[in-house]
């Protein structure tokens, strides 16, 4: 029997979603692909055991977060451009918001950024986020609070985005 039976289908079904999370974490298309490659290689190595235990997706997601945090500790991963485009040219407001948000995310600590992605992009609960990050629910709450506070300072023009998120994190 092929020891990777089902692996291709798993990747096929989930690689786009995983790449998007990796991109939000790293802020760079090439690094996002590198991160996912590195994680999927480990997942492929351990595939039969992961399937037996019924946890391929949970393992992949957790491994990606851990790998990202580990990389960020070792090297600088992102160089956000210094200047914002001026309003009223080729970019619409939404595009400018994306650029500002991307730059603000780049200035968060790895764990703060991870918690923002897990809680507000992947829509995971505090408990689920805590399991993936390997910390307590209380730590997730405080990391979320600090991350949102920092985003508010880094990107005050996006405060409308953070207002209802802060309600949820209280």
């Amino acid at each position: 029997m092929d020891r990777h039976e089902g692996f291709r289908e798993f990747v096929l079904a989930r690689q786009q979603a995983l790449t998007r999370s990796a991109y939000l974490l790293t802020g760079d298309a090439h690094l996002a692909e590198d991160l996912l490659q590195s994680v999927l290689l480990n997942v492929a190595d351990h595939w039969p055991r992961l399937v037996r235990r019924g946890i391929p997706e949970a393992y992949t997601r957790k491994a990606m977060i851990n790998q990202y945090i580990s990389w960020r500790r070792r090297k600088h991963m992102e160089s956000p451009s210094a200047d914002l485009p001026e309003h009223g040219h080729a970019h619409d407001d939404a595009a400018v918001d994306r650029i500002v948000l991307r730059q603000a995310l780049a200035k968060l600590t790895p764990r703060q950024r991870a918690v923002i992605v897990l809680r507000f992009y992947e829509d995971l609960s505090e408990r689920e986020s805590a399991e993936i990050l390997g910390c307590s629910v209380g730590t997730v709450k405080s990391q979320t609070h600090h991350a949102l506070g920092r985003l508010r300072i880094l990107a005050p023009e996006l405060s409308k985005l953070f207002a209802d998120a802060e309600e949820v994190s209280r």
Partner: protein
Amino acid sequence: MNRLREALGELAADAPAVDLADWAVEGSHRRRRARLAAGSAGAMALVVLVGVLLYVPGLPQDAKPIVAVQAAAVPDLPGRGVGPLSHALRTFCHVGGPIPPDCRDGEWRVVTRSGETYHVPQAMTSGHTFSPLAISRDGRVIAYYSRQAATFKVRDLAGGAERTAPVTIPVTKLGRNPRLQLSDDGRYLAYTDYWSGKDGLVIDMRMGTTLPLPAGWDPRSVSGTAVTLARSGLFGQRPGIWVMPLTGGGSPVTLGKAYKRFSALAPDGATVAALGQASAPMFVYDGTITLLDTRTGRAKETATIRGLPEGTRPLDLGSWLNAAEVTLSALPSTSWKETRHITYAVNVRTGQARQLAIYHPQSVMHDVIPGAGTPAW
């Protein structure tokens, strides 16, 4: 929280399209061979290492295995007597979320308009990134790639007649993301691999003749007279439309700007609709639909699409419902958990959209609706 989620979703949409399954499997095989070659002492050490790697602190150790919901087994597609299809979808058995009853990993299943569901075991599943399948506009004919026959087959679902393409097409020639279009009568099949740039074919399944299609063009529709090809203009390509007669020849027309997606050829035989794309940032849909003259490439009319719920992300245009309305496929949100695929009819002159149907595939982009080609990422 919704606004932050939407903003993150918009940002995440800039992520690159990747295809890493085969790469990871090959890499894993290489690492395994290297480990085996390292000798028993090294192998013992690696066993310990694997054990350590597999134990990730905080991983839900007591996570319940993903088990398919027990329900009546889904039968295989019978030889005949199947009603018109509503859609087809692929099932995946090792991902999170609800696993469909009687899951077969990566396999296609079809759903009739009256709700009957059948496995399609004859359609290629694993071993290739995207397994193409197409449904005719009336839902009565399917086309799929048969690994056994090493080519495409077309099947009339009610009568059971099945035709096999006259040429073999090895899997390796299919490319990574083959797109398949079936004519309304099920006689003509067009395929190319738009993204990897391999040549394609139009196949007359009744007469057993073929017409080569150039690389880099995306087949949007095929009929007894012509195949309509489009090129969006991404990645430095010159955007264009090419209504190529099935007798061969014709010439492409160049468009004045890049577009995101194109429709089938309109009933007038002289226009296609296209979703607009902002000049910057790239790939972003600009909210418009444009009617393009296929003979000159000129934009005849442009309308802003109205009536889509906020957060809707248009995916693709498809076949025409009448002289004014074309089908639009869309996702209702940018959430990675999204499993709804919604179709709308869009009036190309007024831009007004009205909802047609909601589909619930297990994984969005892994479903096919009648008259639309295999989805492309």
